[in-house]
């Protein structure tokens, strides 16, 4: 079966800027994925695991008290925090692990920032009997010690990365170096909709289950599509997964980046808001970089948004003006975190707390007969230490 080739670009963004050693692996992955996406058996296997292992479909929840508190649009939460392992990351990790099986590669590597993708990858590797190595910056291991321990319990080898800012970007560099060395036996499960072609397309396709379910659930539960959909954007996998099925609808799409200590402070991760296009980690996309093209160090209270690049499809959605991107700072994210926790009894991760804060502002400007959909990408248990420290509480 010869499958349709996948497009390597999103407008001017995307592409495959990689060392020659990795070209063959990307061509093979592209071919195997193009075949898999047209193979009903692959979709059956994935759908079965999504339902019985991940717990999909995840609920769409009407946040009645938060809606009242804001006094505007009806606020809906797509509950990816209720997926197995506590975040949307497993949608992609599971799909790519099945691809690794098809590729005949027994060894898996992954990078992780907040640890959610590392946990999801370690989880599916345990279930599918694959060897798993996770690269994580030592600063992130410190911030996310619980997830680091979870990965070890799941049988993964956790590799602490000491280079650069010791966060997500550096973990990706190290994972790439591992891949260059072990490419013949190893598949790299990239955790966000970033990296060289075909990764941004593969990750988007697997994460689009979020938006497809949410779209059907909105029609069923609200009787209409949402007026706006909001999600946080680091690399942007949960956002592109939520947005993509709404691209052709009259739905406002809003991505929320991390402004850290403020965009003007220089200590932030607001790539689309404050960056400009370049090439990093194999793809052409918006980057936080200096005049000379050196990548800048980033900051965010949430390890999962702490990345100087962004998925190339988001760059295209920005320049084509189909989606809009804003930035929310650390303090505002904590406000969003507390608001949802207290009004709905749902503790969100710090990443979607950025989206929640911005959604509360947007909801206030909308009418009560309008609907606002938030991608609640993960749960907040992992962030308790960070939140306690930010609120000055000793645990």
């Amino acid at each position, binding site marked *: 079966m010869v499958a349709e080739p996948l497009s390597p670009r999103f407008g001017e963004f995307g*592409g*495959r*800027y*990689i*060392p*020659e*050693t*990795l*070209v*063959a*692996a990307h*061509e093979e992955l592209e071919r195997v994925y193009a075949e898999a996406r047209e193979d009903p058996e692959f979709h059956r296997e994935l759908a079965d695991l999504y339902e019985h292992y991940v717990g999909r479909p995840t609920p769409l929840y009407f946040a009645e008290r938060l809606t009242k508190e804001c006094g505007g649009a009806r606020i809906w939460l797509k509950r990816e925090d209720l997926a197995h392992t506590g975040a949307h990351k497993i949608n992609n990790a599971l799909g790519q692990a099945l691809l690794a099986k098809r590729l005949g590669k027994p060894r898996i590597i992954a990078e992780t920032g907040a640890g959610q993708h590392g946990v999801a990858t370690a989880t599916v590797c345990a279930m599918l009997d694959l060897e798993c190595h996770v690269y994580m910056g030592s600063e992130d291991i410190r911030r996310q010690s619980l997830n680091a321990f979870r990965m070890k319990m799941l049988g993964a080898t956790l590799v602490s990365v000491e*280079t*650069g800012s010791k966060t997500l*970007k550096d973990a*990706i*560099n190290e994972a*790439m*170096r591992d891949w*260059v*060395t*072990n*490419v*013949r036996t190893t598949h790299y499960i990239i955790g966000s909709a970033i990296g060289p072609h075909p990764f941004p397309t593969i990750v988007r396709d697997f994460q689009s289950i979020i938006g497809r379910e949410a779209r059907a659930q909105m029609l069923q539960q609200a009787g209409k599509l949402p007026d706006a959909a909001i999600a946080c954007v680091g690399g942007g996998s949960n956002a592109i997964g939520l947005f993509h099925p709404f691209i052709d609808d009259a739905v406002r799409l809003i991505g929320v980046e991390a402004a850290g200590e403020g965009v003007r402070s220089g200590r932030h991760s607001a790539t689309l808001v404050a960056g400009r296009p*370049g*090439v*990093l*980690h*194999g793809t052409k996309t918006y*980057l936080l*970089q200096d*005049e*000379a*093209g*050196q*990548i800048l160090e980033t900051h965010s209270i949430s390890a999962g948004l702490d990345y100087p690049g962004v998925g190339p499809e988001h760059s295209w959605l920005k320049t084509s003006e189909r989606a809009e991107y804003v930035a929310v700072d650390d303090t505002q994210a904590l406000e969003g975190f507390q608001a949802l926790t207290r009004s709905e009894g749902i503790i969100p991760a710090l990443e979607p707390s950025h989206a929640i804060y911005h959604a509360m502002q947007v909801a206030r400007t909308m009418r009560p007969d309008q609907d606002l959909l938030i991608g609640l990408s993960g749960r907040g248990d992992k962030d308790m230490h960070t939140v306690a420290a930010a609120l000055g509480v000793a645990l």
Partner: protein
Amino acid sequence: MSTRLRERFQQGKAAGRPLFIAYVTAGYPAPEETVPILLEMEAGGADVIELGVPFSDPLADGATIQHANHVAVSQHVTLRDCFGFVREARARGLTVPVLFMGYYNPILALGEGRTAVEAAAAGVDGFIVVDLPPDEAGSFLVECRARDLSFVPLLAPTTSDARIPLLVDAADAFIYIVSVTGTTGAASVAVDELPALLARVRARTDLPLAVGFGISRREHVVAVGKVAEAAIVGSAIISAIDAAGPESPARRVREYVEHVTGR
């Protein structure tokens, strides 16, 4: 194509001896050391120099060259500074071809056209861009050719036979053969596997082949010189600089190059 580079490979061929290509990261260990290091490399017997353009995220490099990049970036050494190093070295008598080796984003940040113009004016002979395979190099190739700059593609053990013609078409002076799957400086060159890889390439081109990655000792250089037109050494030169201590790094690089080339 760079005339200097073509002539250098022709001279090597006429003399029946392989060329020695020496790499150093610009600005390592300090910006003021770079021009002396380039001059001493030539004096020690380097036939071609690769000047590494520092980048914050050198993802194809092993620990040694990563560290050199980090040191250079933290001293704010930029692509434009690299033009300055070559201009000054040429003014002080450097005659060997100089290739810039590095990553794509600094070139993109300065602009592909401007990069080529300034490179040619400074006396640079071409580019090796680790994360710019020919598939993505279209516009930069045009700029390089317009300024008689060479574009040197890399070819790896994992490169398929079907892909080799694409790399050959992008090349003009020589092809950079990556000897092992891995990062720079990590593993030693697999001398036994090299003939088969080179034969696959030679079946498809007459271009000279230069072998790099994993070459650190004189015996590697000799072994590679028997099967390829050139041997490339990088990490070992950075290590020689690191071993210099209070001694002059340029002097130490010269001693190392004299040793490995046997000159």
